[in-house]
């Protein structure tokens, strides 16, 4: 059989079947097509301005390494006029992060970009290894995700940078769409797909230029461009909902390769359909107000080992809601807002008197979650609660630590934090 020529240049021999659409391409055409697609994404979303200083969130893994390489190439080829640098987070995971940071250090030299490393240890007084030693492997991704988001912002602030780009790819975004649908999380569904997520408190915007790039193509790009990257996955396990969504997406990709992209597009469309009172943004497509986004999602490591605990917890919660509904009395949060913006206290109403014909499209007994943003009382970070998630988590951690190590002062306080969080805190208290 004669070698298949490249679909694009028709000259060189095709060596790559694009995972996205099964086009057969030669090495050079693939690299160029990949770069051009990222360029088009950047141009159509007007992601950067001339002279902008941009930090690349670099983990040493394939995604961020490819992002750094592509941005450097495009910046030179199309003369974006960007000042690029690398920003790394040291979570403090021995045998994983210490090795991958070495890769980032080499990347900094290879790409001639300055590098800044921010450690959980210096920011929070805890490394992830210490956190896991305390809370166990279950649920530790929540800590890591919450801490990372703040750490990136703080690192950027230290560099005087207002824009951090991350290596999130199309698979990650698709996974997030499915996960939020499975979790019933409308606010996140409305902002998870936007390419830019800004936050009001830190004025540091984040974006994902690779949001339309397939994970498989990123691997191919790294391979054919002979990039120096670190392949070991995080040794701690991802969350169950993400694990379930990931399996589903891998299956979908087998059936129809375009489906990853289609999920991203569906997610973008659905974001415009989330009722404004839920999404909390007037124009959810333009700039999403990401606040604690991705916080409970973990980092998306590939190993897929998961306990299913989060799904089981949610199942229990939903069953309890259902049960409460089917009994004589129905306890329901009122959706009436008083003129001063407050919400009246919970009322217990007799079902017979409270029974009204259901409103169209509003399922019975279900309230739409809403969020209002403020600042954390302790650290000033943006939060929908009185204290931000990082501080709440630290509180739980520090409570059980020998006094000498405490760096953050905390008053005992129970907030109406997310239920999973509270449950984890309870678990921590019980285990000591």
């Amino acid at each position: 059989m004669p070698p298949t020529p490249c679909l694009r240049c028709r000259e060189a021999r095709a060596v790559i079947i694009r995972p996205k659409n099964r086009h057969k391409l030669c090495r050079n055409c693939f690299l160029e097509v990949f770069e051009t697609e990222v360029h088009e994404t950047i141009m159509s979303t007007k992601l950067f301005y001339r002279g902008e200083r941009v930090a690349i969130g670099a983990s040493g893994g394939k995604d961020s390494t490819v992002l750094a390489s592509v941005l450097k190439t495009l910046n030179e080829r199309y003369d974006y006029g960007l000042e690029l640098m690398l920003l790394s987070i040291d979570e403090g995971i021995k045998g994983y992060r210490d090795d991958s940071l070495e890769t980032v250090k080499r990347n900094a030299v290879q790409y001639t970009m300055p590098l800044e490393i921010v450690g959980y240890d210096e920011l929070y007084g805890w490394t992830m290894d210490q956190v896991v030693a305390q809370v166990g492997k279950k649920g530790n991704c929540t800590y890591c995700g919450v801490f990372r988001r703040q750490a990136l912002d703080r690192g950027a602030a230290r560099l005087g940078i207002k824009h951090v780009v991350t290596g999130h790819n199309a698979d990650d975004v698709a996974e997030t769409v499915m996960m939020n649908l499975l979790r019933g999380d409308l606010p996140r569904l409305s902002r998870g797909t936007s390419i830019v997520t800004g936050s009001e408190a830190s004025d540091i915007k984040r974006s994902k230029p690779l949001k339309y790039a397939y994970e498989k193509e990123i691997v191919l790009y790294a391979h054919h461009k002979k990039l120096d990257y670190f392949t070991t996955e995080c040794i701690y396990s991802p969350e169950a909902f993400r694990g379930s969504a990931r399996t589903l997406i891998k299956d979908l990709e087998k059936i129809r390769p375009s489906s990853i992209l289609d999920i991203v597009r569906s997610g973008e469309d659905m974001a415009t359909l989330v009722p404004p009172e839920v999404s909390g943004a007037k124009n959810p497509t333009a700039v999403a107000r990401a606040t604690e986004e991705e916080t409970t999602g973990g980092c998306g490591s590939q190993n897929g080992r998961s306990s299913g605990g989060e799904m089981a917890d949610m199942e229990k919660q939903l069953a309890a809601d259902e049960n409460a509904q089917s009994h004589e009395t129905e306890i329901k949060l009122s959706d009436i807002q008083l003129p001063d913006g407050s919400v009246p206290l919970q009322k217990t109403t007799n079902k017979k008197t409270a029974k009204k014909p259901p409103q169209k499209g509003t399922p019975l007994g279900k309230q739409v979650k809403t969020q209002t943003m403020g600042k954390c009382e302790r650290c000033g970070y943006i939060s929908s609660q009185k204290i931000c998630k990082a501080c709440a988590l630290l509180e739980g951690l520090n409570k059980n630590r020998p006094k000498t190590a405490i760096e953050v002062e905390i008053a005992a306080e129970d907030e109406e934090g997310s239920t999973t969080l509270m449950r984890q805190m309870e678990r921590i208290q019980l285990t000591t």
Partner: protein
Amino acid sequence: MPGKELSSPCVDCHDVESILTVRSRRLCRNCFVRYAGGKIVRRMEKFRRQPKSSQYKLLLPLSYGVSSSVLLHMVYAQLERQRANTYSPTGFDLQVLVVEPSTISAFSPACEERFETVQKAFPAISFTQVSFHSIFEFDPNVLETLQEFAGSSFVDDPSLPALDRLEKFRRSITTSTSRTDVDNILLIRLVVAFAKASGCQTILWGDSDSRLAAKALANVAKGRGSSLTWQVSDGISPWGIEFEYPMRDLFKTELDNYANLFPEVKSFVIPDAPISENILTKNLSIDELMMRYVQTQGEKYPGVMANVARTASKLQASELRSGQCKLCGASTASAEGLTGGTTISEEREIPRFCLGCARSRPMLDN
């Protein structure tokens, strides 16, 4: 029966032995039927008694599957109750449409006898049976759209009977995902066209909660996120007919239980084909994959799966931002400028079809 010990009394009436577990509660036959029926009555609240002039005319498409059959049984019971009250007219008028299953799939049995049986079981309403290819009659514009949709893959031959022409078109689509997807849209269009022809404003679909969850996930995976507002939520379809899903609060397994209690329903239901274990994932259609996913996950997490449909139904329909897809009526905005998506050649044409439909077009099959 005083003095008789019940080993597991019904938790609702406490009088009778329970026969099944519904959402972790043991119920007797009557209490279960009341529980399930109550969920439908709540959804059908808006079709209560009206002055004769504003009576609703509802269309119920019956596939002889468990869900639509049970829906028919329940809605009929409601109609009977309304009729029993001689002083006021009923809130709605019911019309049933059967698209002969054997004209949709060669694996389905011919249903002439079934059609007789079901009409006898529900004597006071009108039934119509049509074949799938009668879509050319009810929706005359569809042929042109199909030609445009399939391009050179489908050359129509007007001398052939309608059945063969539709078959020819369907054969031009090669993957099972795309075929199922397009078949679904054509069926919806046929039912909508029939509803319009018979003056029905609303269509009552039989989708159970489990089915809606699978449909929500499948539509998202097929790039049809924007159509959830009428494919999963109750809402106005792109053709102006209202879609309602009154079974949205009941799981598929509950409908199976319900059907088993009524021999008259059982007599015409076509049982579900058992899930085959030995099909490779990549040979499934996306719709099948999602149905399996919801079924298997639903055994462990029924509430989580139910919540998917509820979440999807909270989305609000928006105004059409751009053109309307010629095949499914969705906005074509999603198919515009697939930046970063597919740069090379393919989807550069002006979108006449939405992203979801574009993905199912024969020449784009992948």
